[in-house]
C-alpha cells in the first residue's frame, strides 16, 4: 500500500475508531451528567440564584409572600419568622433591573393576590445582573435572555458546556445549603453567621466614612417600577429599608432625593414604605456597614414582624 492510500485508511480509522466513539461518548455522558447536575445541584439549593430564577418563572405558590431584593434582602429577611408562607428571592450582587424582572414574573401570576415585600436600597434604582450563573439554566426564556442582554452567550444552548467555568458556583451554593457551615439558610434566605472582630469592623467603618454615597435613580427603572405597581392594584407592594450602620449616613450626600422618591411611592394606594434605615442597631449586629449579620437579622425580623402583621395576614 503506498503512503497516500495508507494516509486515507489511517484517516478512516481515525474517524471510525476515535472520533465517532469519542463524540458519541461525550454526547451521551454529557447529557447524562447535565441532567443529573441540573436536577441535583443547579436546582438543588434553595439559596442559589438559578433556583430562585427558576422558581419565580416556573412555580406557582398561591399563598406565598415573596421577598425581593439584593444581598440586603437575601441576608436580612427570614420568611419563617415573618409570615406563614414566604420565600426570600433576594440575590447577592443584583440590582433593581433584576428585582423588576422578579416583580414582573410575580405579577404575571394573576391568581395570586398576596402582598409583595421589596427590599429598598438607599442608593436608588440601578442596574446589576449579579452572577450570570443564576440565569444560565433559564437562559432560553425570553425575559431572562433580555435581562442578560450582552451577557448572553451562544454556548448556553449546549447541555453541560453551558456551565463551563461556573460549575463550582453551583456546588458552593449546594454545599452551603446542605451543610450550613458559614451561613444560616432558610427558605431562600442566606445569612452570614460570622461576626466580625471589632478591629475589622472599625476598618470597614473608616472606609465607609471616607467614601461618599449617592441616591441615584435610573429613570427607566423607576418608570417601570411605577408601571408595575399601578397595573397590579390587587397586590400590595411593601417596600422595606433595613438598617444601615450610622457611618453610612455620614457621607450620604442627597438623602433628600431618596425621601422624595419614597414619598412619591407612598402616594400610590397599594404601596407601603417601612423605613428602618436609621433603626438603632449596634456594631456587632452588622456584617459590614450596609448588611446585617445573623444576630442583627434575627433582631430586625422581630421588629419587622410587628410591622408586617398589619399587611400580611
Amino acid at each position, binding site marked *: 500500500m503506498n*503512503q497516500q492510500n495508507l494516509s486515507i485508511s489511517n*484517516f478512516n480509522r*481515525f474517524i471510525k475508531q476515535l472520533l465517532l466513539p469519542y463524540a458519541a461518548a461525550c454526547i451521551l455522558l454529557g447529557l447524562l451528567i447535565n441532567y443529573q447536575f441540573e436536577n441535583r445541584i443547579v436546582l438543588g439549593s434553595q439559596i442559589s440564584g438559578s433556583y430562585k430564577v427558576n422558581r419565580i418563572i416556573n412555580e406557582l405558590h398561591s399563598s406565598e409572600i415573596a421577598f425581593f431584593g439584593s444581598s440586603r434582602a437575601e441576608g436580612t429577611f427570614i420568611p419563617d419568622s415573618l409570615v406563614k408562607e414566604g420565600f426570600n428571592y433576594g440575590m447577592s450582587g443584583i440590582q433593581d433591573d433584576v428585582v423588576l424582572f422578579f416583580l414582573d414574573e410575580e405579577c404575571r401570576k394573576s391568581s395570586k393576590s398576596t402582598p409583595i415585600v421589596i427590599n429598598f436600597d438607599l442608593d436608588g434604582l440601578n442596574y446589576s445582573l449579579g452572577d450570570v450563573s443564576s440565569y444560565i439554566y433559564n437562559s432560553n426564556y425570553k425575559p431572562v435572555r433580555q435581562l442578560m442582554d450582552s451577557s448572553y452567550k451562544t454556548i448556553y444552548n449546549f447541555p453541560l458546556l453551558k456551565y*463551563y467555568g461556573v460549575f463550582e458556583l453551583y456546588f458552593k451554593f449546594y454545599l452551603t445549603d446542605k451543610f450550613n457551615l458559614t451561613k444560616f439558610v432558610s427558605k431562600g434566605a442566606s445569612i452570614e453567621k460570622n461576626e466580625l472582630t471589632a478591629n475589622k469592623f472599625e476598618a470597614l467603618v473608616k472606609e465607609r466614612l471616607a467614601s461618599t454615597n449617592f441616591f441615584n435613580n435610573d429613570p427607566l427603572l423607576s418608570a417601570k417600577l411605577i408601571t408595575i405597581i399601578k397595573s397590579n392594584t390587587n397586590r400590595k407592594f411593601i417596600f422595606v429599608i433595613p438598617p444601615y450602620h450610622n457611618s453610612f449616613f455620614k457621607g450620604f450626600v442627597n438623602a433628600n432625593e431618596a425621601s422624595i422618591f419614597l414619598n412619591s411611592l407612598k402616594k400610590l394606594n397599594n404601596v407601603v414604605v417601612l423605613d428602618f434605615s436609621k433603626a438603632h442597631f449596634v456594631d456587632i449586629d452588622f456584617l459590614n456597614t450596609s448588611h446585617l449579620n445573623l444576630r442583627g437579622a434575627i433582631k430586625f425580623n422581630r421588629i419587622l414582624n410587628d410591622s408586617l402583621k398589619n399587611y400580611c395576614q
Partner: protein
Amino acid sequence: MLFNSFEFLFFFIIVTSLFFAIPHRFRWILLLLASCFFYMFFKPVYILILAFTIAIDYTAGLLIEGQKTAKLKRIYLLGSLVANIGVLVIFKYYNFLNDNLTEIASLIGFKNNLPYLDILLPIGLSFHTFQAMSYTFEVYHGRQIAEKHFGIYALYVMFYPQLVAGPIERPQNIIPQLHKRQYFSFDNTVIGLNLIALGLFKKIVVADRLAVYINQVYKDIENANTISTMLAVCFFSIQIYCDFSGYSDIARGTAKVMGYDLMINFNKPYLSQSIAEFWTRWHISLSSWFRDYVYIPLGGNRVEKWKWIRNLSLVFLLSGLWHGARWTFIIWGMLHAFYLIVEIITKNIRINLPSLGTFSRPINQTAVFLAISFAWIFFRAETFIKAKLVIAKLLSMDFSLNISQISAEKGPFNLLLSFFCIILWFFIKLPKYKESLSRNLIFLIGITFLIITLGKGESAEFIYFQF
C-alpha cells in the same frame, strides 16, 4: 491567539484539515499564513518585528555559509546577533535600562534625558529571537546548512505551535521536517490529541485554579499568615510548571497531529535530586540553548573552579534577564546560580555524609523543591519589596489556624478545589499509545469532562507569553 480558547479550537481544526487536504508543495504557505494569523491575533503590527529578524537571519545564514574566511563569517554572525539583540534591547530592555540609568544619574547628581518608550512588549519575543539566533549559530559552526527556501526558513521561526512560548527549537530538528512530506497518521493523531488534552488540563484545570489562590495571597500579603504564604509559594511552583509545561504539551501535540516532532521541554523537573539535575529537566530548550551557545563557549566546567563559577553566574544572570527586564528576575537567576555554586563547593562534603538509605531520594527531592519554590518568590513578585514581604511572612512563624486567613478571599471551597486539582494532576498520566486504543479513548473523554467541569472559565494568558 490563546491555546486555551475556543478560537484556537476552530483554528486548529481548520488548519489541520486543510494541511492534509492540500498538496505538500503548498503546505508551507498554509502553515506560514496560519502562523501569521495566529501571531497577529495578539497585536498585528508586531509581525513586522518578526519579518525584520527573519529577513536578517535568513540573509545572514546565506552570507555566513558563502564566506571562505572565518573572519568574514564572524562579521556576518555578529551582524545578525546585533540585529537580534538590538530588537530585544529596544523592545524589552530599553525602559528597564533607562530607569536604572535615571536612578544612577540621580545618585551622582545628573539628570537622565533619555526618552521613555511607550511600547508594549511583543508577545513571545525572547522565544522567537532565540530560535532565530540558534539558526545563525548553527550555520556559523557548520552544523546546519543555510536554508535556501525563504518560506521554509520563515516557517522555522514562525511555526505557530511553538512561536510564542517555545520549545526553542534547533534548525536541525525542525527544518528537515518542514521539507519532508507528511501523511495523516492515526498514531500521530492519537499521541498529539492526548498531548493537547493533557496540556489543556494542566493549564485550565490546575494552573488557572491555583492562580486564584496565589493571586489573592500575593495581592493581600499583609493579611496572609505563614501557612497561607507557604501554600501560595508551593502552589506557584506547581502553577508555573503546569502553565508552561501545559503550553509545551499543547504545542507538541498540535505539531504531532501534523506529523512534526517538537523537542521535549520538561521532564518531571520536581523529581530532581539536585539543582543541577533540575536544570536538565526544566525548560530544556532554553537551558540547552544557554549551555550550547554561552556556557560551553565560555569553557563550561572544563576550566579553573573560579571560572566555572563565573560561567555559571553569567549564564544564570542572562537566564534571569531573558525572562524579563526586572530586578526580581535577575535575583531569581542569581539565586539559582548560588544554589549551583553551593552544590559544587559542597560536593565533596556531601559525598562523605552518611547515607540516608531509601529516604535520601525523597529528602533530596523535597529540599530541591523547597529551594526552587523559594526562588520562584522573586519570579512571581512584581517588585523586590513584595518579595521581601512574602519572605517576611514566611519567617513570621504565624501558624494560627484562622480559616479566613488560610483560605484567602475566595474561601475554603476554592482552597479545597485547588488541592483536589493537584491530586488529579498527580494521578493523571499520559497513556502510552501502544497500551490500547480504549485506554486512549477513555483518557481523552475523561480529560474533556474534567476540563469542562473543573476548568476556570476565563481564558487566562500563559505566564511565559510575557517573555
